[in-house]
């Protein structure tokens, strides 16, 4: 019972990692910022941890290795998606300034003279 309460107070490292992957998948920036704060607190705790707590965290770290790998892959996929979106934005910006209206997709929405 006591252990269960402790776990609620200090969730397993693994849960934190899994939650980070989930939050990133659904692009929940606020949750990710909360998790970043949790990590910061955890880092501070780590500096003050006694031998028992260190051993506990060591075990949790070993159990989390697979989930960290998944988180890394989600992060990598997000970076790839971000690149795609950035390129799209550049592409659109280029069309707005220089391009002719295309048959499919975006068309410019204002006069080239800018005085209408």
């Amino acid at each position: 019972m006591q252990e269960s309460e402790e776990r609620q107070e200090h969730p397993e490292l693994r849960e934190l990692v899994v939650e980070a992957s989930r939050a990133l998948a659904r692009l929940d920036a606020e949750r990710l910022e909360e998790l970043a704060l949790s990590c910061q607190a955890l880092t501070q705790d780590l500096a003050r941890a006694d031998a028992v707590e260190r051993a506990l965290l060591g075990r949790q770290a070993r159990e989390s290795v697979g989930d960290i790998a998944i988180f890394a892959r989600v992060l990598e996929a997000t970076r790839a998606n971000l690149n795609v979106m950035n390129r799209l934005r550049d592409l659109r910006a280029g069309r707005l300034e220089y391009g002719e209206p295309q048959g499919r997709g975006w068309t410019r929405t204002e006069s080239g003279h800018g005085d209408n």
Partner: protein
Amino acid sequence: MGTINSAFSLISGALDADQSALSIVANNVANANTPGYTTETPNWQENSPVEINGVSYGDGVTETGATSRRDSVLEERLDQQQQLASASSVRLTALDNVQALFTPDSGSSSSTAGDIGSDITSFFNSFASLEANPTDNSLREEVLSSATTLAGDISNAAASLNSQSSGLGQEAAGVTSQVNSLTGAIAQLNQQIQSTSPDADAGTLEDQRDEDVSQLSQLIGINQISTGNNGLALTTTSGQLLVSEGSSFQLTSGSVDGATHFFVGNTDITSQLASGGGELGGYLTARNQDIPSALSSLDQLAYSISTNVNALNNGGTDLDGVSGTAASPLNIFSQPAAVAGSATSMSVVMTDPNQIAAAGLGQGTGDNSNAVAMANLANEPLLQPIATTSFSMTQNLSSATPLNGTTSGSVQIYDSLGKSYNATVTYTNEGANTWGYSISVPDTLTADTSVANQVSYSFGPGETVDPGTNLTITGSTGGGTATIVAPVVVTDEAVGSAGPPATGYVAALDAQLTAAGIIGVTVTNTGGVLTISGATATAGNVIADPVAANATGTLTFNGNGALISPAANLSGITFSGLSDGAAALNLDWGLYAANGAANITQAATPSAQSAQSQNGSAGVNNGETPTDFYSDFVSTLGATVSGVQAENTAQNASVTQLQTQNNALSSVNLNDEAAAMSTLQSSYQAASQVFTMLNTIMASALNLGEQTTVS
């Protein structure tokens, strides 16, 4: 010339455009719940400039019709990610099923395939028990019983894997009708779009086409190519055309060598589809890659255990004082002819426990040395031989060699049971730049001395005594002893043939024994076993020549000494009837190197053989014991499942992200693109921070954990 009216016209045009835009907004609201419906935004087209008093003004904009706010690049990225996610989902399910075969059920030590790891331990432990009392019948029964369990579990696992493989082929075939239905629909939509909106956005028709392409992406890996007049061509990721303009090309399936293959027209695109993505790619990757990999490991395990245990049992003495021979082997397991298929066919063929050869060769039946050796197999790397299939040697044949003079070269090669042979090529100068060649693979026979004052040699079917035999026989002459050197030249006898021949090796031996005055020594040939009994001593080897095919021929060189015939490497050189019962050696002789240069040349100056190579080995199971090999296999399978799981999670996350972006851009909601981009960017940045900190925590925690453990 422009007037003030032109300015009014400019303003009213803008109002008209706003009104049109309102209509489109209404349409969006009405279609808010239509799947795949894409928000339409008004196209604002610049009008011709208006001149007022010589000054050119912009003529405002005119609403020219709606363009869906779809973005082909983003949608294609989404489709590609869906292809990958679908493939890994299907592959993961298949891998989970494979893994379930080898994973014990909860609360049990036994899995669907039994517990092969424990079976291996129990089997070798049964020999350890037999060591203590090698004549005990119940212990012998226990050996056969544990062997049956091991063979049964391995063959059942292999059968289950084969069944899963067939099932995946059927699942994959089931996908083809869905693919064909969608490609047909896309081709029809292409026709409609091209006829109604060749130069503009086709609205709902394009939405339908995008929706169909999205569904198709979940089934099969595709590339999308925009064509003229708003058309869309689709190919497989390897470029096989599926849809072009208004035509679609049907995907069909059929059986090739018992496996389901996939075709477009007559082209077999199975391997292309396997690497392409989508459900079809997932099914085929699991069927063509994951299951064969698991089967291959099981085959290696079954092959190495069967051949090693059989070889040892044949090399010992059973409870009736009998040792195994090629003609009458004492095999515990069915002897596999090749590694492939060994797991499926693994079974126990021994029914009489007395045939377990617990005693060593030539030892009494109470001896346990062979049982010890078989128990020790549990802790030894098992032989996993690879038969030689090709060999080459680099050599200059001297043109100064006298006519009919010979020279030779040799290469050590291996049969399917790991036994080595010295393959020798003898070249005979036949003049006029031609050399005859003759390839031999002398087979040194192992002497069976299990019966006192008797030595036997088992010949493989059709094997003949080799001229190189250097056997000596010593026997009594009545008043003393005499020794003969067995004849090295044999006339026409195939010792391996059944029955005592009237002439040949046996007759020649008898004649020499008689001439030497040796009495009481008899020589027989029964069923391919040459037995010499009554001798006081024998020494040396009996060497046999396996049956050879295509092992002789002619090499022809031009005036410069370059090989001109044969013009290519020689194949189909076969040696059969090997005394250890190995599969026939099927060899290719590499006369030419990869760059086309001949390995054999004729030169004025003689040259020794300078290089030799062959591709076989007596190898081992990565140096692993049977138990370690199996554990390694299960661990590797687990790692593969885990890797695909991670990949699948990441790909699904990526799809979710892209759908969020696509919805913001394309669906009917109030989020704008900038906000969506901002969310993506800030999420990535926050996640990067989390990841960096997690990395630091992991490194520190693992290090601290280790230190704690050590202290």
